[in-house]
């Protein structure tokens, strides 16, 4: 357990002063429209910046930025499986490790992996696995490490996109890219790719029906959904519409991700001068 003894640590039980703000001083998410100028009920995801190959020691890596959400991913492997008793002669194993940097959230986190991070790791693993040709890597393991640098909502969705970008950058054979998109359902309308305040939902109208969030992982060219998570309560119709909206959102990301990959390939194998 990496406990830094030199660091001056806070008391065991401490709270962020932000929660003691009076209700009036808290930022309220507007009931109509959205703070960053996007519209409710439309699939206008935040502009995304994506780039591959920033961790030189990893086999492949990627960095993605959507609004203020920033995360990076590095991929190691394929290499021989560490735990010999788990060796699978037919297919490789994928390991995912999802972490929030301690400074990434509003409340300072711990270095050790919490239960939320474990949950995200598992969701990430299950979303990525159908996209990777694991049978091409028998008896080996591929590790995917995601680190969230700043959490401003929709981290899981962007982690999926970022990880698939890093896997592609590492030259791991894949059936398709995996793209993620999430959505916050607020009554009859929805907020796609929500920011942290929109996601945590202290904002939205209380006592309304259909409050929840949906995250979808999509293999875009195969049109297969590899991961679907939905929290909260919503009607079946709403859920179906929400999933559709997320799929549309994923497709909007596709060209950006493709561009980033082309760029990274160009850099690794520059086209001949003449």
């Amino acid at each position: 357990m990496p406990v830094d003894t030199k660091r001056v640590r806070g008391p065991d039980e401490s709270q962020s002063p932000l929660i003691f703000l009076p209700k009036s001083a808290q930022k309220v998410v507007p009931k109509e429209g959205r703070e960053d100028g996007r519209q409710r009920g439309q699939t206008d995801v935040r502009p995304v910046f994506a780039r591959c190959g920033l961790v030189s020691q990893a086999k492949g890596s990627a960095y993605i930025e959507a609004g203020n959400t920033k995360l990076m991913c590095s991929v190691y492997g394929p290499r021989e499986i560490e735990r010999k008793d788990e060796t699978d002669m037919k297919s490789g194993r994928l390991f995912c490790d999802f972490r929030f940097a301690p400074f990434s959230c509003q409340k300072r986190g711990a270095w050790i992996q919490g239960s939320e991070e474990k949950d995200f790791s598992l969701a990430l693993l299950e979303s990525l696995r159908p996209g990777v040709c694991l049978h091409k890597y028998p008896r080996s393991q591929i590790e995917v490490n995601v680190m969230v640098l700043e959490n401003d909502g929709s981290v899981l969705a962007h982690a999926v996109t970022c990880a698939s970008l890093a896997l592609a950058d590492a030259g791991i054979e894949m059936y398709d890219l995996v793209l993620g998109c999430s959505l916050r359902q607020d009554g009859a309308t929805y907020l796609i790719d929500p920011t942290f305040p929109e996601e945590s939902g202290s904002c939205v109208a209380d006592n309304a029906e259909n409050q929840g969030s949906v995250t979808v992982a999509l293999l875009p060219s195969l049109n297969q959904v590899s991961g679907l998570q939905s929290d909260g309560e919503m009607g079946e119709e709403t859920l179906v519409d929400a999933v559709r909206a997320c799929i549309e959102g994923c497709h909007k990301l596709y060209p950006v991700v493709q561009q980033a990959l082309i760029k990274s390939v160009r850099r690794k194998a520059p086209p001949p001068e003449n």
Partner: protein
Amino acid sequence: MATVQVSEAEKVYIMHGVRDDLRVDGRGCEDYRHMEIETDVVSNTDGSAKVTLGHTAILVGIKAEIGKPRPMVADEGFLEFFVDCSANATPEFEGRGGDELGTELSNTLYKVFNNRNSIDLRTLCISPGEHCWVLYIDVLLLQCDGNLFDAISVAVKAALFNTRIPKVHISEDEEGGKEIELSDDPYDCMRLNVENVPCIVTLCKVGHRHVVDATLLEKACSEGGRGSLDPESIFEMTETGKRVGKALHAPLMEVLQKEESLGKKRQKVGFLG
């Protein structure tokens, strides 16, 4: 959890059966296996239930303790889930072997049960910002034979139905100090409204159709429960899930009510039956 391996021929047999709405054990695609429910099986808990579904056996015990409300929601109590994947279920869970599955299950349970309409957490509040009831919901896996999620959710719902939280009285002395007094009468207690507590319905895509309450064998036929789905089948499956869930709720509540009405006359079976 007995590890199951399925041969190609077996796979084809099961898949063809599912296509014709006839599964290996004679069920249709939307039928559950035989389920047995008994509440109030562990007497030193505030609520408990034992559920068996096929060979899957789950024991849930709920203890209510007085704690401090979370600062974000000062007027609500909260639920804590713990899933103990004991070695009884399978030797693989020995030592720390079951921890991973345990965290996965408890995280899911938290997400499913901690919704606004499921249990009114405000009824668990004793005095805002100071004291509230914390419900520790401990799930014990005794035997795994597929479809853990559904069996656990039914067991949790039954245990919540059975839960009796003692009534408390807050008295204030002259200096403004508050004191909590527990009611002397053991029958003077609070019940929870579990009408809207959800049940999980797990669907498994086998071939071109989906089945409810898949056995380990059937699960092994659908890529071991991993893989991807096309959007249309997801929508179909949500629809089936909703329909089956509704059909599960009504008889479940009925059975719980019926058991309750037997009162003290009910012969406790537990593990002896």
